[in-house]
């Protein structure tokens, strides 16, 4: 079998190339480190200046919220806003929080209070992330500020409740006195009735003091009680009238009681309003809280293997073309499919080892979690590798020199990488650009790998990208062989 001769030769070649082996070992580590840590879409600890001209409990809460946010690394400064802006232009600071002097007053008056945030928009990522981060700070500080307001209201409500209780007691004793007066009148104990009325008047006056809101109705009662008293003192027999007055008095008590119930209800409502917001969005992450690193790992694996498969294969063939060994081989009985088949298997084998190694790094060194099956991950990566090698063969049949390769390869790899959802979802692209992503084999690998590794999907759930990848692999390898055969010399 001539195929085995090619395989044997390629393995010997690779085994002897120490720099190549070292690259295979070091490259994934460096890429994982660099992409995983240095290349973060998350912005953290942005240098921020804070100017507090309010110097109130409320502004302190805002500062606390800034302090608690991961996005800002703040310095409290005692300079004017204009100076701070100048500072932003010159120094490493990226944002200014400005709390104006009337911040607390406006809040107390229940007016709209504003904090100003100035963002360094010369850096797009910072600008974009801080836009979102600031509302988080606003929400957090507002919650704390509302807590202060509610606490004040609670104290006020406690005092009011005391007053209400007092009024209620008074009303109860009035009720008692009223009843006694009526009884005395019925017994025609005029003296006793008059005394009761006098007591009643004293109590009514007390009530008037305790509940100023009820003054008018109490005055009304007092005047009626006064006429009853004067009638009694005049010894006039108008018991029926008194009866009527007593009835009216009872109605008035009831009114008073109703009014007081309303006051109680209003207080309760007030308390409820201030203790909680009207609504909040409760966030639930279907597949758990995800870090950018976890999001990136499937893509890094895709990237590394695609690079190895694509770049190595194409360069390997260009090298053979340059050293004229390809030319020499072309005059031997070795068939093209044997040559490419041999290379394909060798690089696929290297790819499998590299896949295992990358998985090992991800799982053991970087603690990446794979929710789904490792075997599904392996399968997807193998298909990707096959596609990459096939494309490599295809490109190498077009490229004639290393110089052409060094120009053409980045031209192919970089766009394929950028549209493949490696760093950002397809949604960042305008709609008309999105179909471009479907050209990239890495796009399918990323969908399938993220599905398996993050969502824990089975192979059946990601069967479409997997099938597309498999077809891609077949097509690339087939075309690679066909075109190479035609263009080899």
């Amino acid at each position: 079998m001539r195929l085995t001769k090619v395989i044997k030769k390629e393995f010997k070649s690779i085994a002897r190339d120490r720099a190549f082996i070292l690259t295979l070992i070091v490259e994934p580590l460096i890429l994982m480190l660099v992409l995983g840590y240095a290349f973060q879409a998350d912005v953290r600890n942005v240098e921020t200046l804070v100017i507090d001209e309010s110097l109130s409990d409320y502004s302190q809460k805002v500062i606390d919220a800034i302090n608690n946010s991961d996005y800002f690394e703040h310095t409290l400064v005692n300079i004017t806003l204009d100076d701070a802006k100048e500072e932003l232009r010159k120094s490493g600071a990226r944002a200014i929080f400005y709390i104006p002097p009337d911040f607390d007053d406006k809040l107390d008056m229940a007016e709209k209070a504003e904090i100003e945030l100035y963002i360094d928009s010369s850096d797009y990522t910072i600008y974009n992330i801080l836009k979102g981060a600031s509302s988080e700070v606003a929400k957090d500080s507002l919650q704390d500020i509302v807590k202060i307001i509610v606490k004040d209201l609670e104290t006020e409500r406690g005092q009011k409740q005391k007053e209400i209780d007092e009024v209620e007691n008074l009303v109860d004793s009035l009720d008692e006195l009223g009843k006694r007066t009526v009884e005395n009148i019925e017994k025609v104990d005029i003296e006793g009735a008059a005394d009761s009325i006098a007591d009643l008047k004293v109590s009514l006056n007390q009530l008037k003091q305790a509940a100023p809101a009820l003054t008018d109705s109490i005055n009304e009662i007092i005047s009626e009680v006064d006429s009853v008293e004067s009638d009694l003192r005049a010894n006039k027999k108008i018991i029926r009238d008194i009866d009527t007055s007593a009835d009216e008095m009872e109605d008035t008590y009831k009114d008073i009681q109703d009014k007081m119930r309303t006051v109680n209800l209003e207080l309760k409502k007030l308390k409820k309003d201030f203790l909680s917001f009207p609504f909040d969005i409760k966030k639930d992450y279907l597949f758990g809280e995800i870090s950018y690193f976890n999001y990136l790992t499937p893509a890094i694996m895709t990237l590394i293997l695609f690079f190895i498969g694509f770049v190595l294969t194409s360069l390997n063939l260009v090298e053979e073309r340059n050293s004229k060994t390809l030319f020499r081989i072309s005059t031997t009985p070795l068939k093209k499919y044997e040559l490419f088949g041999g290379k394909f298997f060798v690089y696929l084998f290297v790819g499998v080892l590299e896949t295992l190694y990358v998985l090992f790094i991800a799982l053991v060194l970087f603690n990446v979690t794979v929710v789904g099956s490792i075997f599904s991950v392996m399968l997807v990566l193998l298909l990707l590798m096959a596609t990459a090698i096939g494309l490599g063969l295809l490109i190498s049949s077009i490229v004639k020199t290393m110089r052409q390769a060094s120009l053409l390869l980045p031209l192919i790899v970089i766009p394929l990488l950028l549209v493949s959802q490696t760093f950002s979802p397809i949604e960042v692209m305008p709609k008309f650009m999105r179909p471009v992503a479907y050209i990239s084999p890495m796009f399918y690998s990323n969908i399938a790998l993220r599905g398996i590794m993050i969502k824990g999907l089975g192979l059946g759930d990601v069967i479409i990208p997997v099938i597309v990848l498999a077809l891609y692999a077949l097509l690339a390898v087939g075309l690679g062989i066909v075109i190479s055969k035609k263009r080899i010399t």
Partner: protein
Amino acid sequence: MDYAIKVSGVTKRFGELIAVDNVSFKIPEGKIFGLLGSNGAGKTTIINMLTGLLIPDEGSINILGMSALSKIEDIRKQIAFVPQTISLYEDLTVYENMEFFGGLYIDKKSELKIIIEKMIKNFELEQKRNSKISELSGGYQRRCSIACALISQPRILFLDEPLTGIDIQTRELVRNLLNSLKNTTIIITTHSIKEAEAICDYVVFFDDGKKIIEGRPSELVKKYSQILGESISIEFDVFLDAEKIGRYLKKYHLDIYDLKVSEKTVTFRSKNLGRGMIDLINSIRYFRSHILNIDIKKQRLEDIFEYVMENKDEID
């Protein structure tokens, strides 16, 4: 006579350029055949067509009785090609390269091993068998390159400029080895006519994609010597005035061509050696000087190539 290769009416164009223009020749089996010509004459294009790497636009090529168009796969099992560049795997050793290239023809491991050992011995590569190609000198690289091609014991061996840029020792060795291959037809392209004359049984001169002349080197020398005459150089004891000699010869004598004068030496061609000599010696008297040395040189293939290239328009 059996012919290893028959080329008839072959033309190959690359766009506007006609690289090979209606060329025909036959190569008898077991002979060493030289394709000669300066750079760009079309030698490499012909070799590429003979090995199936290029397809001719017109004409037919027959190799070992098979058409190079339809039976190239079968042909390739019986031919071997040594390109001008080393074209070996530099990261593999001498032995590994032989194992790979030989393995493409010979399946049986034990058989392959015996032949490789023989090649290593023949090409005096014993000390270098485990050295990587990249560690070898140009001469050893060339030895290995040719050895790799010979492992399959091809019926036809193509060598593209096999003797350029190598040391005398290797050149001698390769020359002897090629001469000893009695059953192999060898096609060599070279621009070194001297080498071709030494090795080749038969040569064809190419220029601008066209065949100029062909024949056995000895026959070509004999044929063109009659046209060119012999080359004589005479050394005198005084410095010579080229203009004066020229004038003198022109005035009295006819059978001297290509006269060159340098310091005390006169070189010229003459179809009639005796007549030419008498003419010149007579002229010596006129210059009052003595002859120190006379050197008569037979024409070489090189001289003929030079002559043919200069006068190609007059040659059929």
